[in-house]
């Protein structure tokens, strides 16, 4: 196979990755924004919508406008992280550098760190590190976005 068709395919694929990244990022950020608006307006019905998406334990949720958010800090971090990760994947310098393997590494590290945090809390090593949990969720969300988009980029490269 000559180089020319491969280049065309690569360019088309990169364009597709960018499109996914923009749509995914916009949706994730819209969701994060909607959660903040629900708090700002104290909209109980809207809060109920998320009751099946998260445990909503008030001591584990970030406080916005005097009340706890409709989802916990880790979940909020994950959705925000997906948005941030998607938008961070758009520039050419990032698309070119994040390989499928690196995507795996990010996802594994983020999964292990979040699992470790859950375990530490479970065994009582520390309790309710609200902002740390949110930051770890953010990392996990960004890692999920990087992983998925890096795999989309290499769609035609078997197993990479």
């Amino acid at each position: 196979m000559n180089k020319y068709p491969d280049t065309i395919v690569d360019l088309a694929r990169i364009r597709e990755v960018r499109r996914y990244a923009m749509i995914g990022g916009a949706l994730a950020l819209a969701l994060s924004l909607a959660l903040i608006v629900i708090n700002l307006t104290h909209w109980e019905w809207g809060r109920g919508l998320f009751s099946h998406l998260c445990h909503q334990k008030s001591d584990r949720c970030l406080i916005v406008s005097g009340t706890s958010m409709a989802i916990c800090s880790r979940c909020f971090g994950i959705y925000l992280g997906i948005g941030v990760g998607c938008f961070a994947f758009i520039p050419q310098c990032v698309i070119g550098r994040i390989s499928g393997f690196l995507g795996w590494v990010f996802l594994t590290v983020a999964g292990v760190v979040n699992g470790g945090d859950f375990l530490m809390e479970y065994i009582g090593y520390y309790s309710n590190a609200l902002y740390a949990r949110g930051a770890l969720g953010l990392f996990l969300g960004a890692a999920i976005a990087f992983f998925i988009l890096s795999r989309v980029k290499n769609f035609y490269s078997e197993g990479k």
Partner: protein
Amino acid sequence: MTDDSEIVDLDACPAKPALITGGIVAFALTLFPMSYALCCMPLAIGGFVATSRYIFKYGVKLDLKYAMKIAILACLCGFGASTLLYDLLWLGIDYRIGLDWYVNFLADLAESAPESQRDQLLESIELLKEQSLGIGVVIQQVFTVILTSGIGGAMGGALASSIFKKGKVAQ
């Protein structure tokens, strides 16, 4: 680039078996309110199972949007069915699946919660107990099923299509 012979026609691969499998998983995991402990993971698992089943049944690698579509549909079916069963039991014999467990869970939480949040929790327990099945609740459930299935299913389907990438391209 792949040859034409390596491309599988999506129309020749019906999604029904994958939807049934993923739907059953989503149904089983959402029937009891485990989401209070596992967040959106039950639906992400349902979506993951549906997409994985499709990939392995036909030996294909799926484009992201089609993978997400299968996963979301499976979650809609499963979660929709479990919500319907929940409502039928509530309406028919006044039994709400997992309510006692959830009320106890919230009560325990209220005991250990800071003073400022205790009232909010106790109030939500009372509201939950007194809630009756009406049009407002049903509308909220419909939106919840769509929203939650969309988020959980999309994540599960996207992860499944990203992890299992071997096989022919399905288009």
